[in-house]
């Protein structure tokens, strides 16, 4: 196994340890905190997955909610016919398959055009799902008999751990080296032997799977499925914000970003959702302009011999 120096693997151990400790929450705290925990774990799972594609390769996806939404749709639509032990993996597979199918043409588009393309794609899928549901006479769906909060917590915990593992794996293998080269200069990377199309597609597919399962779990949590809610662009936006604020290159970045946003959301979402969004927007602007390397990049790991961006 090809390894990069210690820091990344050390981070993995740290994060997995923290997640294991988090497993105590449903056992010692009440439903409210379990709920908060689920939200936090979801944020970590989503952002880690997003970073596999966007932080490593530089192809910033503003439409990642599409995988989340597709996963939710799969689970809700198959409710009653499939047990969740099957439908959740299927949700992940469906999201990955979708990424595989659209990946090649989508990843040929570069820079800011890729960003708005992913956004447009997510919106397109959203409106298509709305139309499909409407054709069946449905504006929303309701599911009954879903698992309890504690079960959902542990499901989400597993997903957060899996996502972190995937993100670690992507970084330490050849794939990670290739993706970083692609981010720095794609044409030079290809000329030096990096199979760019294959690697971009791999990153895309890997970044899609877990969000699919996460969407499925959240559908179980909400018991209510409405396309316009589930395919909300703000989910995509939050992933990016968390990665940028936390620091995309670092394995710990999504954790920190999730905590920052989670705290803000706990304080503001119920009382002043617009203010929350305004602050989120401000944070994004400030970090993009002045702290593009994120909190991890700026505070936690000052210039080692290996320069990190």
């Amino acid at each position, binding site marked *: 196994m*090809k390894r990069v120096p210690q820091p990344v693997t050390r981070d993995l151990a740290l994060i997995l340890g923290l997640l294991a400790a988090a497993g105590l929450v449903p056992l010692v705290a009440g439903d409210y905190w379990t709920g908060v925990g689920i939200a936090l774990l979801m944020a970590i799972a989503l952002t880690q997955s997003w970073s596999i594609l966007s932080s490593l390769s530089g192809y910033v996806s503003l439409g990642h909610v599409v995988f989340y939404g597709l996963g939710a749709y799969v689970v809700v639509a198959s409710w009653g016919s499939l047990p969740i032990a099957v439908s959740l993996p299927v949700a992940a597979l469906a999201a990955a398959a979708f990424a595989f199918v659209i990946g090649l043409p989508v990843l040929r588009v570069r820079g800011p055009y890729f960003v708005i393309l992913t956004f447009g794609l997510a919106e397109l899928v959203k409106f298509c799902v709305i139309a499909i549901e409407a054709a069946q006479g449905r504006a929303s769906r309701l599911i009954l008999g879903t698992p309890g909060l504690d079960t959902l917590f542990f499901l989400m915990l597993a997903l957060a751990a899996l996502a972190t593992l995937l993100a670690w794996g992507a970084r330490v293998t050849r794939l990670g*080296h290739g993706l970083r*080269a692609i981010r720095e200069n794609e044409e030079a990377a*290809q000329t030096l032997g990096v199979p*760019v199309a294959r690697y971009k597609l791999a990153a895309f597919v890997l970044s899609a799977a877990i969000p699919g399962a996460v969407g499925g779990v959240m559908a179980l949590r909400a018991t209510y499925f409405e396309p316009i809610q589930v395919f909300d662009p703000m989910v995509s936006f939050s992933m990016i914000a968390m990665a940028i604020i936390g620091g995309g290159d670092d394995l710990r970045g999504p954790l920190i970003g999730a905590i920052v946003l989670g705290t803000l959301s706990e304080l503001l979402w119920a009382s002043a959702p617009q203010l929350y969004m305004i602050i989120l927007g401000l944070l994004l602007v400030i970090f993009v302009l002045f702290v593009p390397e994120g909190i991890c990049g700026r505070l936690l790991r000052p210039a080692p*011999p290996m320069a990190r961006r």
Partner: protein
Amino acid sequence: MSMDQPLLQVRDLGKNFGGVHALDNVSVDVKAGVILGIMGANGAGKTTLFALIAGNETPSSGEILFRCRSIVGLRPDQICRRGVARTFQIVRPFAGLTVLENVTTAAMFGAGLHASHAGAQAAAAEIIGEVGLAGRIHSPAGELTLSGQKRLELARAVATGATLVMLDEVLAGLTATEVEEMLVTIRSIHARRGLTLLVIEHVMRALMRLSHHIVVLHLGRKIAEGEPEAVAASDEVQRVYFGEAA
């Protein structure tokens, strides 16, 4: 491929860009171990030739054989794995990565000689020493001087394990001293690793000194080929280069 077959064979190569003939029926054979210099004014088609061989562009006509096998239509990364590498005229470093990471990447992905990261890194370190960048091995590539970045281009190309290395104006923008140093570096790498080099240069005297053999391109066509002295003396070349400092 038998020993006396040329390493690289370019046959009637042509490239059109919307009506502009960047290259027009160019043929050249390159034997293994040779340093072939490629001369020509701006727009003569030199960089286009490299782009076609390396796979960054596809030819409009003609054939390119490397080790007697056609490489036309292959992707750049596939061609690199066959053993062909190039540098870019305008340097393209992986600016956010260190010099070591830049060259290690090339070593990892090129002709695929290194199965492990450690092996690739060791090979990279060696080449970095050979090009004289050992003192900056952990610096971010974006912070190197122009001379350093040119050496980095060279190091990356060599680190891919290629047998045919194409250098595109690696001397451009360097001071006279830096040019001398670079020539020494290129010659020693060429000798030590048994490479075949294609070299594009504007610094004509350096090109004459470096090359075993010269090809002159003008407006996409080959107008002269041969030993450096013969080519420099040829009437055609004199006419085309009237006024250019030699």
